[in-house]
């Protein structure tokens, strides 16, 4: 400790190095913290302009040209809805009946998967969820019968997965399943 005090008194560069090290450390932690937020925000904003405001994003069946998200599953058909519940709740409706697995998963702005509902849990019933933020849930009238889900962040992403065995043979059923998804802000 005496050496540290000596260095501080005798050498102002030691103090400057301490500050610079602290800046580097703080930047390191901030960048690690921010990486998921930046990637999620970029994904939510990556929708082509001509498709904005026209319902869920429905990318084509995954193949080698699919480069929006790393490690895409070639066995799944996807539908995406960015959500923003800072001002108003967000209603999620779907009535999928594909031959196999499907799920609707909700991701927070930091990429945490905070909710998932799959076909077994839905047991054939239509999906009717109202996603609320911490402030929007109490202030708004919510639809009767809808299940309320509270998002941990104001913004995030919904990802619907529909399992596809043979796309050519199952196209009608799996496309109908993902096209049944409705994502609408509740005014």
């Amino acid at each position, binding site marked *: 400790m005496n050496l540290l005090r000596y260095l501080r008194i005798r050498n102002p560069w030691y103090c400057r190095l301490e500050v610079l090290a602290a800046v580097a450390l703080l*930047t390191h932690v901030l*960048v*690690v913290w921010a990486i998921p937020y930046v990637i999620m925000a970029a994904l939510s904003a990556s929708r082509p302009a001509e498709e904005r405001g026209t319902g869920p994003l429905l990318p084509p069946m995954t193949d*080698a040209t699919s480069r929006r998200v790393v*490690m895409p599953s070639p066995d799944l058909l996807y539908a995406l809805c960015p959500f923003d519940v800072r001002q108003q709740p967000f209603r999620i409706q779907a009535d999928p009946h594909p031959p196999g697995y499907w799920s609707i998963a909700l991701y*927070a702005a930091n*990429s*945490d*998967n905070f909710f*998932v509902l799959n076909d077994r849990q839905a047991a054939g019933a239509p999906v009717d969820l109202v996603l609320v933020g911490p402030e929007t849930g109490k202030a708004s009238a919510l639809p009767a019968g809808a299940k309320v889900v509270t998002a941990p962040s104001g913004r995030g992403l919904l990802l619907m997965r529909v399992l596809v065995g043979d796309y050519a043979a199952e196209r009608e059923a799996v496309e109908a399943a993902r096209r049944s998804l409705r994502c609408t802000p509740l005014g």
Partner: protein
Amino acid sequence: MSPANDLSPAFRPRWTGVLTLYLLAITIGAASAWLAVRSQLDSGGVSAGVWRTSTLAGSSDADLYTRAVIAVGALLALNRDETMYYVATTDSAGQVLLSRCRYRISGAAPAARWWSVTAYAEDRFLFPNAERRYSINGGSAPLDARGHFAFETGPTAPAGAAPAAPWLPTPGDRGLSFTLRLYNPAAGLSAAPASLAAPTIERLGSCE
């Protein structure tokens, strides 16, 4: 006249130097963060044979680094009660996987409602291939009488393979990894990911 222009010529170089040092510190902090995250891709977590899985993928319990690693390497992963993701980057002899090599992947059908094995290149995207085959799954992999599957991967079709035989094309001379996805895994497996009866990855031939 702006305040900056009021600075004396002797004062300006000193502030330029200080600013440069702070920018250097910020650059070092940002670069070390990125390198730390990249270095942890496909490492950590729980092992079952040569397959590794993160028990915190998609979980709100993930720490700062795990969350960043998942966002970079496996964005939008589901939590492990819904789906488990096992990644292999080496064969069962410990050698790094290469797309130009041939491999035989075999094992017991995993204890899950549905499973698949997908081949990814080093950029973590699918291999372009004329056959448009990107995965072998529980629906396409025939099982033997013991409930075991086996299929080959490689840059070309296995010699003498029937057109419909299950195999995974991995064209070119690139990095390679396999991802085993288990949708709706058995409760016991979800609770103990290391208990997976891990498929083996056997290199075939001399890899030339």
